[in-house]
């Protein structure tokens, strides 16, 4: 059962890396705009004759 310690450690390391990624990205401003990116996904594709 002491393998549980290993599992605990592994799980915490992985989740901490997610936490660190979250902190870093928040500081870089990923979450500054909550509304825009959510809406942009849902826009229809522009027709082909537009600029690339």
């Amino acid at each position: 059962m002491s393998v549980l310690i290993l599992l605990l450690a592994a799980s915490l390391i992985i989740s901490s890396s997610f936490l660190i990624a979250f902190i870093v990205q928040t500081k870089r401003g990923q979450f500054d705009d909550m509304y825009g990116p959510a809406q942009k996904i849902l826009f229809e594709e522009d027709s082909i004759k537009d600029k690339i």
Partner: protein
Amino acid sequence: MITKETIRCYHCHSPQQESMIRHDDKDFCCQGCITVYDILHSRDLCQFYDMDDMDFLKKAPFNISRSYSYLDTEEFSKRLIRYSDQKQTHVRFYIPQIHCRSCLWLLERLYKIDSRILRSEVLFDQKELYVVYETGSLLLSELVSILASIGYEPSINQTAEDEKPKTQRSEILKIGISGFCFANIMMLSLPEYFSSGIIQESIIRSTIPVLQILLSLPVITYTAWDFFRPSISNLKKGRLIIDFPISVAIVITFLRSIYDIYYGYSAGYLDSMTGIVFFMLIGRWMQSRTHQFLSFDRKFLSFFPVMVEKIEDMKRCFVSINDIQKGDRITIYPQEIIPVDGILSRGKAVIDYSFVNGESDLQEISIGQHIYAGGKQTQNTIDLIVMNSHEQSKMISMWNHASFKNKKVRNENQLLDTAGMIFTWIVLGLGMGAWLFWMSQSKPLMAWNSLTTILIVACPCALLLTSSFVYGHYIRVLSKYHFFLRDSQVLNDLINIDHIVFDKTGTLTIINGLLVEFQGDQLDEKTKQALTDIFSHSQHKLARAILEYLAMPVDHYDINMKETIGEGLEVWLDDQHYKIGSDRFVGLQSEDTRTRVHVIRDNRSLGCFIIQNKYRSGIEKMIGTLGEKFKLSLLSGDHENEYTYLSKFFPLNASLKFRQTPLQKLEYIEQTKSEKNERIMMVGDGLNDSGAFKAADVGVVITERNNNFNPESDIILEASSLIWLDKLLTFVSKMPYIVMVISVYSLLYNLIGLYFALQGKLSPVVAAILMPMSSISIILGVYLSVEYFHYKIFKNTQS
């Protein structure tokens, strides 16, 4: 009442108020909307109209034909350009009109409107637009013209606050971190739950608690400080706010858990502690988020004209405020705010210093006298000689003057804080009582046990959670009906209102698009021009309607005008004497009860403008409904000729007063407040009654296709939503009930849970789930109650 058949302008979605113009098989409300539609149509951008459903009222574009050439100067370019090289230039604008999906969609397709624009990106929450264009191919002034032509003129003198992203980031970080810690602590409790409370392996038994404590550290040292900090700062001021008992509970839970874990009494309560912090932070964040749409920007600078007209060697040119030097001569137009201290050199100055010292009395300044920055020139055009350049001006310090800043001393969440205070004393009382009891029985362990348990369990977290979410949802729903509150404290004020005071012109009646006809001699072009110039200097609301009717461009003129507010004006122009105004002002008798503006030139009557008072549709019914619950008053600057009509739908005990000056309005409100002790809500357009707004408990400003709002107001209401005021107030009145019911529910939930837990009938797993469940059920309960009332009250309206 707006019904399904109401036609809406195809572009801006405002409901039909007057005759709509038909263009390209669609209805539009004004030429401005048609112009923008044409632009979009020709560039194949009509998808703009498919974006949002008709619910979202878009603002109509302004008809501005302004020169933006001052933007090409070094100084302004410097401010706006973020990056520039041979190939590309990056610019950032603040565009307050950004408010919906369509705005987002359109502004990111600017390259379709002008191919010199390479790309553009919208930062929606900050209402900013980032544009990249080919260096050298496009002037800033052209770019801004393009934006203005589609209805998104950037606000040059105002930038989005740079602090906003930082505070928001810190909130998000705190929620993320406390969520992480909470979830992991709960996960670490699983081994204990599933081995019925006893873990055989000593390694696991010792590591898990240590890890839990480590995980709770970020919460207690960083994230929970959002509650500790205000508690401490308020405590220093001698005030107890709701954050205080919550902070006490958090700290006690933490210490008690460490104690229990160390001595092996129990596994601690760290999951509860971190869970509470997590949910309450979410509640707070949600509450503040709903305000992000609103920018009640009280930055003084945004009320200033950015460019001031300077006279140099008989020539006029535009100069930025910052460039004004001592000794310059500048021109100030009516309704503009004086940017710098100066001495009056020409024209008649009648200054409103209410922004500066809160006084609504107008001050007449004679030539050679001092005029202070921050005052608003009310009539006529004047010239000043500048005494102090912009930086040395005293206006910033005046703005911070107490009389302007705080009309009432306000605490955030006053209701909540009182509840919190009572709660704290009760809990402390109980705790101390239990402690003393057990100490007297010589059982110190029990004493500390009960004290800490009571402090932990009796945490008013549910109260805070409930109210944050209730405020948040309420503001969201109210905004949908274009009822924008300054902050959640206003909601509390709204609940206590007894008496509503209405302004007439512009509030109950429409200003834009009024039916105007001219009765009299045919007006020639020269006369029309003269009248246009005259009326453009008047501050009367009817003058605006007449200007719209005359539809001529204004020729700036140095007009020596004497205006009697609410009555008329007298002016000399081109050696001709004009007397313009009401029946009484020009000395004519008439049986006609319609609103008339006579024009007399050189003692000969040219005729009169007849202006129909057009009341907003549905207003009669709304006043009727309101009259059942509130005392009503009408304060109008107009004549009594509307009295008969108004008394038909105003209740019998309502006071209808006419020919009120701004000062009289203020006095009426103050008098009613002191004599009858009633809480007053004032509904008006804020232009001429800022004193009255300050005196009222809640000030509601009606906006209609303009951005004029009073910094003294508490609520902005779009004109088309005024007819729902009765429903909105009913909706608001339900709020205390919701908070009370949910709080009681939460209390019962906790008590019942505690009862079973103390008897040992609750297995640890179930207990562990029940705790977050209580928070989640509160959040859900609040949402459902608010939506229930929303549906019930508003179900017959179509916004």
